[in-house]
């Protein structure tokens, strides 16, 4: 049961961190909670479907179906996160006006809420799918009882939720005037980490040709597979043995998002408007 809970926790912690950050970053956007909840529900449904059709997916595309799917999911999540940052920057003034109750309220149709839902759904779906398959595997091997396994699974999910909640409430403790910048950066780093991961999936699928020569090995310092390592990996894209392409993509994604948000910012009035939320 303990083994099951540790493994489930390791899988869900990535999704939990993403959800915590997204919730904190969109605290001022009404309707965001509902959309995150919808994303979770769809993610769970998707995870079950993924597990049921793992067979079919694996054999697709000459055996590379899983890798192509993972790469596509990552890339889509990166685009959604980038777009979220750009949108929030561009509409900073409108959001602060809405919060102060002045001006016309930002219609939920124009907010990128579905963007959040998609990011959350993708995270839950990928991690959930692995969980379902793993627990299914244990169940069918008959080494533990269903009850034992269910307990382990629930504990693992509970621990993941606790972690997500910690990040969420931790972020909410930050004064509003800094919250926007900090969560924007956290989302940018989330996206950069996912983009670097996508490089590996694309290589696994045989779609790109890269030489996986690690630039350094910091696994003695912080093993990427440890709990702390995985947390840092999710939050910043930390890799203990990255190759040059992963590093380049990580840096490139940060620069690209920074550039696009700067372009979206327009004049200094947008920045002042966000700060005036106080």
């Amino acid at each position, binding site marked *: 049961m303990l083994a099951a809970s540790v493994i489930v926790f390791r899988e869900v912690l990535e999704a939990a961190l993403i959800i915590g950050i997204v919730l904190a970053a969109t605290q001022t956007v009404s309707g965001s909670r509902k959309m995150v909840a919808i994303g979770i529900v769809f993610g769970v449904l998707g995870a079950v479907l993924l597990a049921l059709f793992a067979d079919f997916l694996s054999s697709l595309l000459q055996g590379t179906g899983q890798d192509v799917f993972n790469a596509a999911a990552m890339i889509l999540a990166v685009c959604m996160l980038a*777009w979220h940052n750009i949108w929030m920057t561009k509409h900073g003034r409108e959001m602060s006006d809405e919060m102060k109750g002045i001006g016309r309220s930002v219609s939920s149709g124009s907010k990128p809420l579905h963007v959040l839902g998609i990011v959350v759904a993708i995270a839950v779906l990928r991690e959930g799918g692995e969980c379902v398959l793993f627990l299914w595997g244990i169940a069918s*091997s008959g080494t533990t009882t269903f009850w034992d396994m269910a307990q382990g699974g629930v504990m693992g999910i509970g621990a993941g939720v606790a972690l997500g909640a910690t990040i969420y409430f931790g972020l909410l403790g930050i004064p509003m005037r800094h919250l926007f910048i900090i969560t924007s950066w956290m989302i940018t780093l989330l996206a950069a980490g996912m983009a670097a991961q996508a490089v590996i999936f694309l290589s696994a699928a045989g779609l790109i040709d890269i030489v996986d020569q690690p630039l350094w090995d910091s696994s003695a310092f912080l093993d990427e597979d440890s709990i702390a390592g995985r947390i840092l990996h999710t939050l910043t894209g930390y890799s203990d043995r990255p190759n040059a392409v992963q590093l380049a993509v990580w840096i490139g994604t940060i620069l690209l998002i920074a550039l696009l948000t700067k372009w979206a910012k327009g004049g200094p009035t947008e920045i002042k408007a966000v700060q005036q939320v106080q």
Partner: protein
Amino acid sequence: MLNRSILTTSLMGLLIAFCAPALADEKIALTLKDHVFIPDKIQAPAGTKIEITVKNMDSGADEFDSRDLKREKVIPGGKEGIVLVGPLQPGEYHFQGEYHAKTAQGVLVVK
């Protein structure tokens, strides 16, 4: 805007996906039975593209998982999975069946 970005991403994805995947120079067959890899030590020359076909002869799924090779792939029970790696530097690359890590351990030795 959302519909357009989803459409573009999907089309790009499909386009890329249908291009032929990289061809491997070296093919290795690996079996997973009773949650143990057979053989548990496989070899390949350095600098070559390698295709490892993992046949899961157990009834439950397992995940071919290698931190050294940066590969993770779920292989349903009774099915085969293909793992593409390389070109690699000489060295030892460990892999495991993540769902049964106690027994399913192996190493790819690259010379």
